[in-house]
């Protein structure tokens, strides 16, 4: 037994271990749920997790880029809310068509991210502070547009919200899930097969070294915040498909959910180590906790937060152990 475990640990490089732990956790939760609750053990349950969390997945992808460089982006939740608000108000008031509104929202999110990235780089300020300011700014902008919820009645949006993309065996996902999947695949490609992606990892590993090795550290840092801004805006668009409304109180605290998903997915908060697959698994675990609690029926939904809190704590401890053992 011991030798087998030893053998295994020798065959699996240390960098994959956190992702594997999250994967095992997900499988274990699914198996236990399947045994405990009737109707739990179906593919559609997992797909529903994706359907309900497509926007979070997209936001978490952007967050993964930022955290891999050793930064943090607290503005994502507010940018999501701002995006829903801008889309809803532009379609309701002046009646702009979605194919104008959506690109505009994406550009606004990217520019916000780029400005924050530039400030972080140019003035050498903690990302925490800059994105905290960005968070208040974006949330405040929501209320200058309107303090009430604005419903979205645009035909394209409602069609998007109600369409089911059929897979095999009667299972289905929403178009948002398809978009999220494309985002994940593109992001994984960028991280692993382009120089930008490797520069992200190098910057997170040691910014000073990356600079001396001649990597474009400044460009990389600004780019990751731009990516995060773009992903937040896209997450906002997906959330308005899901909610069919724009509201300044949407996505309150989503930045923390996104950070939690990334961390549970095994990405080190200090940067330089982690995988997008981990982030996907992190979002799945968070979603599955919600599902389990709704299947349980008797528990209040606040238990979700308690479990996420406990899980986060355990994973941060695990990170600490891993990094301690490595040095």
């Amino acid at each position: 037994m011991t030798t087998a475990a030893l053998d295994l640990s020798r065959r699996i490089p240390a960098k994959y271990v956190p992702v594997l732990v999250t994967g095992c956790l997900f499988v274990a939760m699914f198996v236990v749920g399947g045994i405990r609750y009737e109707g739990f053990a179906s593919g559609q349950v997992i797909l529903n997790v994706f359907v309900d969390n497509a926007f979070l997945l997209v936001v978490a992808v952007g967050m993964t880029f930022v955290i891999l460089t050793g930064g943090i982006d607290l503005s994502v939740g507010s940018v999501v809310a701002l995006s829903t608000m801008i889309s809803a108000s532009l379609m309701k008031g002046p009646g702009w068509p979605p194919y104008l509104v959506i690109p505009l929202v994406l550009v606004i999110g990217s520019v916000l991210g780029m400005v924050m990235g530039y400030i972080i780089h140019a003035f050498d300020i903690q990302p925490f502070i800059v994105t905290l300011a960005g968070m208040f700014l974006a949330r405040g902008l929501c209320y200058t547009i309107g303090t009430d919820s604005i419903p979205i009645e645009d035909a394209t949006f409602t069609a998007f919200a109600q369409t089911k993309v059929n897979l095999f065996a009667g299972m289905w996902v929403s178009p948002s899930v398809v978009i999220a999947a494309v985002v994940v695949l593109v992001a994984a490609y960028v991280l692993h097969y382009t120089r930008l992606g490797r520069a992200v990892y190098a910057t997170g590993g040691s910014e000073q070294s990356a600079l001396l090795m001649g990597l474009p550290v400044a460009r990389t840092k600004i780019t990751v915040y731009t990516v995060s801004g773009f992903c937040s805006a896209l997450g906002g668009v997906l959330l308005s498909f899901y909610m069919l409304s724009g509201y300044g109180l949407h996505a309150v605290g989503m930045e923390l959910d996104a950070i939690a998903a990334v961390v549970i997915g095994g990405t080190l908060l200090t940067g330089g180590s982690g995988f997008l697959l981990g982030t996907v698994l992190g979002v799945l675990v968070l979603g599955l906790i919600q599902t389990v609690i709704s299947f349980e029926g008797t528990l209040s939904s606040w238990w979700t937060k308690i479990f996420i809190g406990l899980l986060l704590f355990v994973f941060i401890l695990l990170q600490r152990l891993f990094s301690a053992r490595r040095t």
Partner: protein
Amino acid sequence: MPPPAPILRMSGIGKQFPGVKALDGVDLRLLPGEVHALMGENGAGKSTLIKVLTGVHPIDAGTIELDGRAVAFTSPLEAQQAGISTVYQEVNLCTNLSVAENIFVGREPRRRGRIDWPRMRARAVELLARLDLRLDVSAPLSAYSLAVQQMVAIARAIDIDAKVLILDEPTSSLDAGEVEQLFQVMRNLKEEGIAILFVSHFLDQVYEISDRMTILRNGRLVGEYLTRELPQVELVAKMIGQELAALEKLHGEAKEFGSPLVEARGLGRAGAIEPFSLTIHEGEVVGLAGLLGSGRTEIARLLFGADHAGTGEVAVGGTPVSLRTPRAAMNHKIAFCSENRKSDGLIPDLTVRENIVLALQATRGWTRPVPREQQDELVGRYVAALKINPADPERLVRDLSGGNQQKVVLARWLILEPRLLILDEPTRGIDVGAKTEIQRLVTQLSDGGMAVLFISAELEEVLRLSHKVEVLRDRRLVAELPNDDDLTSDVLMETIASGGRAS
């Protein structure tokens, strides 16, 4: 065989930093297929020379020619692309990335826009084979030792079709076996015709590996020499800048002392100073001689508890004590005047009086302020005794000259009536008058029974004051010499150069 044409020629290089002339008329030439050592004490301008060569700083005067063409790099990247690569003392790589990536990151081989991982690994293996290294190139760099990481840094440097390889103190964190491995790599590269500029504080290593050397002192060129034609003693003399013949023999004298005050046995700290034993008696002045960076300050810091000793023990007055903090050392009446009075000692915006009573007040604790009359009395006495000028205790310290500031620091520690006073470079950067006064004071204090550990870069000063001299080299205490008639700065320099083997 005539020497081949130099691949790199720097001539008349000048570099001015605010307030300092860092480089003045320095020439350097590198021949292909040669290891060239750049020698000089700390602050002689070695780092600045490397930095202007690699484009970190622009030059103010002079020309740089690479392969016969004048060049002026504006960034290390540009210098790299022209074939000048640098490997720094601290390994500047990303340990979270794989070995292969560390070699190629930023210029990964690509196919149709995507990184070609298989080709990158294959090329990494090939490149490392040139250095006689066989590694798992897809393993993270953190899996390997510092020495291997250094080799990977070199592999990265030579991949860019390097003509000139600069190794800035590459051996300072390597053990003997690893150094040998590095030297083997350097010899291989030399045979391939690469010019290597090697910077090291370790004289033995310089003599083992280098063919030629350029010596700098105070930002000026001393000369270029063939290593085999320059004995170590002369090298040290040229680095320190004193002609042996011109050194006047000035003397304290060896004396027998009764009771040992501080005894260190096998005291050491990994990476700072190798274990040493040292006994300081009451009333004895012990001089520490050695080049900058040889471990002089490290000994002082260990004895004052500013650094934690890794091994060994200290006894004060015969009883073992633990000097874990400067406070503990102060309780045992050990005082330390650090070499950097500006940053470590004085508070420029307080008055002379306030600066002097600071340490006394600290030992009493803030709840028991020193009464003003006592302050005035003490300060008045020491201002007079040390001839602090102007003799006004209410003057701000920042208005005083360097020598007088140094006396204020001294007065602060003397008020505590220490039994052991550690003086680290107390006379650096102050004028001759103040210097002799401080020297006279040290003699007076030791006559009064105080033990003094005296650190100075000036050998004659060490000889004039000390009863015995401890010689340091390469972070090791290599010899203890009684200051008798046979001890001259010539002998001292010989000992520093030979590492105590001659004596």
